[in-house]
């Protein structure tokens, strides 16, 4: 009995020293061969190092495993490295984008950027002339109008799918999904043909907001539907058992219970449309001054400002574009993070 107590538990799944050594040497081998390969052949650049390193690593491990344990293990090792490559390739662009925007956008960020508009400046002027106040206020106005219009429709659609479950449930769910695939330019053209040309005949912020509404409804509807589906049915039954009508049950029990989830849905919808460019280019007219009236006159916005500066082409203008992108992506990231936090807090409850 006593030798059971004194026996040290073995962990056969743990890598032995020898296995660790081979792993490291394969890694080093792949590393060195990538340098050698790039030095000896005409392939150049950071991407070449990555590519050769991964190919070499995949090759070395699978050859080693093939010698050690045969072809099944070799295939397994090959797929091991392939999926790792897949994951790395997926996230490289994100970090590249974030780093580039930070590096190129920061020089263009100054205090004046947030207090001036472009009324007396053109994109090619020196950077301390003008700013993007008009773009920020414009984007906020557009988003606010789109919110007011799309939140009721989106949530009503979700309520129809989860609470009423009428006879159109299947087709409507299908159509909402189809609607989330409508290209943004088509939404812009639709507002152009249905509202701008026959009725208002002038560019304004409202037109842009209408197009954004079309793009925002499916996002809100789909996310809200998922959230409302998570509300336990017992809550609805409890509401009915207490004598509540369906209207009272939904308004006083289901919606309050889903509040944070619905907020997440709305925030995700805003993140989806904040940077939408194509319909803005068609509909808002892109003014250079702060325009508080969304119903009259052209309205600037961040995407339009970025687009205009980017197309102006001079180094100052490009820096302006990057600075605008930095502000825009900052906005999107703040929205995204708050949606995440709200969502995870709800899940933790």
């Amino acid at each position, binding site marked *: 009995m006593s030798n059971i107590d004194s026996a040290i538990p073995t962990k056969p799944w743990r890598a032995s020293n020898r296995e660790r050594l081979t792993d490291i040497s394969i890694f080093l081998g792949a590393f060195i061969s990538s340098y050698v390969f790039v030095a000896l052949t005409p392939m150049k650049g950071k991407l070449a190092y990555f590519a050769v390193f991964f190919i070499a690593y995949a090759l070395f491990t699978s050859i080693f495993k093939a010698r050690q344990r045969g072809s099944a293990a070799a295939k397994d090792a090959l797929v091991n490295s392939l999926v790792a490559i897949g*994951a790395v390739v997926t996230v490289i662009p994100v970090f590249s984008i974030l780093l580039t925007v930070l590096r190129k956008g920061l020089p263009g960020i100054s205090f004046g950027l947030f207090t001036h508009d472009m009324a007396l400046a053109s994109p090619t002027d020196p950077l301390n002339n003008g700013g993007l106040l008009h773009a920020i206020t414009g984007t906020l106005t557009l988003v606010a109008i789109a919110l007011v219009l799309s939140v009721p429709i989106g949530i009503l659609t979700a309520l129809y799918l989860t609470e009423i479950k009428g006879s159109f449930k299947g087709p409507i769910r299908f159509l909402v999904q189809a609607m989330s695939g*409508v290209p943004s330019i088509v939404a812009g053209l639709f507002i152009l043909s249905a509202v701008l040309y026959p009725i208002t005949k002038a560019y304004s912020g409202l037109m842009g907001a209408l197009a954004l509404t079309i793009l925002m409804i499916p996002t809100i509807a789909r996310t809200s539907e998922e959230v409302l589906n998570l509300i336990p049915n017992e809550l609805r039954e409890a509401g009915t058992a207490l004598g509540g009508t369906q209207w009272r049950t939904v308004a006083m029990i289901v919606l309050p219970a889903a509040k944070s989830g619905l907020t997440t849905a709305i925030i995700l919808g805003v993140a989806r449309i904040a940077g939408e460019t194509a319909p803005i280019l068609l509909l808002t007219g892109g003014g250079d001054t702060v325009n508080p009236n969304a119903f009259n006159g052209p309205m600037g916005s961040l995407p339009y400002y970025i687009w205009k500066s980017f197309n102006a082409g001079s180094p100052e203008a490009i820096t302006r574009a990057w600075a605008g992108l930095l502000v825009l992506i900052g906005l999107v990231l703040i929205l995204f993070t708050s949606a995440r936090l709200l969502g995870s807090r709800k899940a933790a409850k």
Partner: protein
Amino acid sequence: MSTQELQIPLPREITTEPRRSDKIFRGVVTIGGLSSLVLLGLIALFLGYRGFEVLRQEGIGFITHSDWSISTDDAGNVIDSHFGLAAMLVGTILCSLIAVVIALPISVFSALFLNFYAPEWLKKFLITVIDMMAAFPSILFGIWGFLVLMPSIEYWAKLLHRYLGFIPIFDMQVPVFTRSPFVAGVVLSIMIIPIITSVSREIFSQAPLDRIQAAYALGATRWAMIKAVVIPHGRSGVIGGAMLGLGRAMGETVAVFTVLNIVFQINWEMLLGAGGNVASLIILKFGDASPYEIKALMAAGLVLFLLTLLVNGLANLIVKTTGKSGR
């Protein structure tokens, strides 16, 4: 005894008739629920109505010819016009196919990594990053693609041309590599990787656990298990995800317009710097279009709308049926 004083309550009338408040509620919600139907219908209707004149004049040539020209006299009357979308349609399909071909393997591999290889903390982190990537605005991908990515893609395109030029798709007559459909395809592939990855991840995570464990118990390696259980379970779902990505790539406007050189000529050479895209055409021509040309653009929008609707509808159908079957 005071039994006589007790009143026997009358039986209540039982009815399933909802109260008035519920009727109003149901009515309002149903109207709201039907809005997506109404909106989609209105989009098709209005684009068709505005584009009708052009569609009737061009007939089938609107999607089979590839010249886009309009000439007006000084008073602004149209003398002569040719509107054909063929080059743009070919370009749209070429770019989005390139995007899907590049994005599909990468997304499937990373979805497998997320589900079966990554430790929990890494999985959470990567899912956040990938979801975040899906929220990036398209203008960001466009400008980043043009200024940062394009030089290296051009370089890789040259390598492809030099070493794999004997394969017809990598062949080209005039070596112009800048702003080619290939560049646009790579930028689009980066934009659709998050969509395909999250759809595939969802489908893979529904793979039956008992079969996974059975495969391991029989001594399968991880890859053998994936090949025998996960791939057969998720195959059609992944195809659906790829089609969702295809639909997104087809409708993309700003990112493609930024990196692609738009030429009104049918071009199947993916490395050559000349391509097309219906959505970019609309942005390109909108600025100085006459009223008649705007009608042609509306018709182009209608074609794009119907195309993406078809692709998305098919994709959703495929994803839905696999999600339900739960084999």
